[in-house]
């Protein structure tokens, strides 16, 4: 009987360890849930109080500029640079993904290209900003403009969309492709008629996420596209205000925390919109 008690005793420490681990794990899980909820909740709560129609639809006013009025030019500017970036990056990335998944003959070539694409994706946003500033703004003489900022964001988004689209193409079942090809039609036809429709949700999800990320990214546009204030509406060769740099200016110059909350609200709303779009698309993909 002694021995039996020994067994229970020996087990006990491990059982306590297991309990402690279980508790820690649930605590970590709770933190993982509460952290995003409280950060997002905090920003949305404060931002919501600032938000009004005029905040979205008016230009910044007051002295220093931004203490009153709205953030319309920043919204327009962000849309302009991100839109231009997408217009360049999306077709390029989609075409690249099509080449890699459908035309490339050598697996080694695909692997090498993917390697460099992922390296490009690993470069931090600030370096795109530095490069865009020196190369596009100064050396090419594009100046601080929507053009420079858009091209810089395009470089930022290209690898992300490429990798996402490539995996979306690869997720389409091989038999489908093969049977389509065996009908004797061209590859381009198969891509357009069977692959693209199947892969589209995945491609759009990757694109929406990349664009959502680009909208909020201040570092690439800080020196390539943005200024503290503009009056005119965006054009290709003029500088603009953007949402993230506007937020940065409001905070770093301590202009107006109220307006900073409002701007952060808009940025968070973009993020939540992009994420829920991507989630819905992925959900549909799974069905």
């Amino acid at each position: 009987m002694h021995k039996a008690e020994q067994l229970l005793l020996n087990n006990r420490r491990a059982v306590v360890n297991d309990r402690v681990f279980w508790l820690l794990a649930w605590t970590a899980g709770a933190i993982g849930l509460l952290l995003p909820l409280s950060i997002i909740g905090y920003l949305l709560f404060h931002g919501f109080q600032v938000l009004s129609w005029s905040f979205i639809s008016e230009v910044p006013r007051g002295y220093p500029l931004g203490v009153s009025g709205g953030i319309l030019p920043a919204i327009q500017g962000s849309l302009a640079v991100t839109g231009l970036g997408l217009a360049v990056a999306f077709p390029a990335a989609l075409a690249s993904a099509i080449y890699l998944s459908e035309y490339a003959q050598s697996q080694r070539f695909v692997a090498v290209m993917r390697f460099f694409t992922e390296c490009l994706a690993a470069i931090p946003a600030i370096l795109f900003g530095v490069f865009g500033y020196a190369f596009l703004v100064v050396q090419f003489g594009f100046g601080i403009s929507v053009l420079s900022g858009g091209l810089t964001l395009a470089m930022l988004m290209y690898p992300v969309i490429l990798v996402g689209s490539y995996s979306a193409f690869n997720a389409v079942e091989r038999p489908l492709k093969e049977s389509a090809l065996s009908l004797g039609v061209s590859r381009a036809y198969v891509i357009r008629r069977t692959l693209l429709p199947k892969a589209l949700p995945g491609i759009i999800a990757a694109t929406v996420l990349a664009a959502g990320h680009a909208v909020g990214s201040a570092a690439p546009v800080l020196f390539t596209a943005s200024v503290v204030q503009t009056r005119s509406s965006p054009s290709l060769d003029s500088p603009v205000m953007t949402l993230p740099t506007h937020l940065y200016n409001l905070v770093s110059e301590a202009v107006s925390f109220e307006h900073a909350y409002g701007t952060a609200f808009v940025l968070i709303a973009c993020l939540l919109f992009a994420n829920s779009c991507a989630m819905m698309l992925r959900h549909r993909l799974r069905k």
Partner: protein
Amino acid sequence: MSTQVASHPARRLGGLTLDPLVWMLTLLALVIGVSTFFLIVVYVLWQAAGVFGAVSLSEFLLFEPWVPLAEPPRLGILHAWVSTVYVTGIALLVAVPLGIVMALFIAEIAPTAVRNVLQPCLEVLAGIPSVVYGFFGYVTLVVWFEHIFDMTTGVSILAAGLIVAVMVMPFIVSTATEALDAVPRSFRETGMSLGVTRFYVIRRIILPRALPGIFAGIVLAFARGIGETLAALMLAGNSLAVPKELLDRGQTLTGLIATELGEAALGTEKFAALFAASAVLMLLILLINGGILLIKNRLLRHAQG
């Protein structure tokens, strides 16, 4: 292949299929797209080379202070990389243990429903823009620090480190979860059927098996941490002194670049010095990412046979 069969006439364009054209255009897009990588790397290195007429590598990295307005300008980045190491170090110190336990929770313990809520939440956390994190830290952490530590201004290495911790944590969680999920489920059942606790199975079988993947995630998180700009810029304090304590102010490499670039003229030594700082950052990050990618590809090839 079976494509030898003649194409359907309707699919032809003036007797030609679209294939050669599409082939050429897509290849062109790929070549141009991927070559931006080399363009950036080469250009940054080329611009950076200019600084070494003014200072030697060891002076640049270790001995000179950053006084660009001095005559001649003194261009050392010691304070910046020390700040970067501090901030990223604090971030990993916090995010790694928390992230690993969270990943263990998601992969080993959480009911599916909880997992399905938690993972999108963490995805949102990962998506919050850096500048918003900076602002959030500014109105919360920095204010608390001023109260708690009785500081005149709460911006500090510690504030930046804690916010960067929140930023890299979701990444650590997702890579670690992936590594844990890759361990075959049957190990868990067989292990538990020997009458041991779940924790013992995790400690003896699952964690050792997932460790390489988890470690890779941590290293990649380090690379992300050192490239983090806006939050570090807004919270670290932009001080040119080499930080010694957690509550000192500092300026990370990224912060240095973001602060000074707008005022540097092309061709000056300062401009070159900022590019050299960028090059240091870039090479470190590419080394880490490239290394991990190569190892992973090699392992994949092994796994396939």
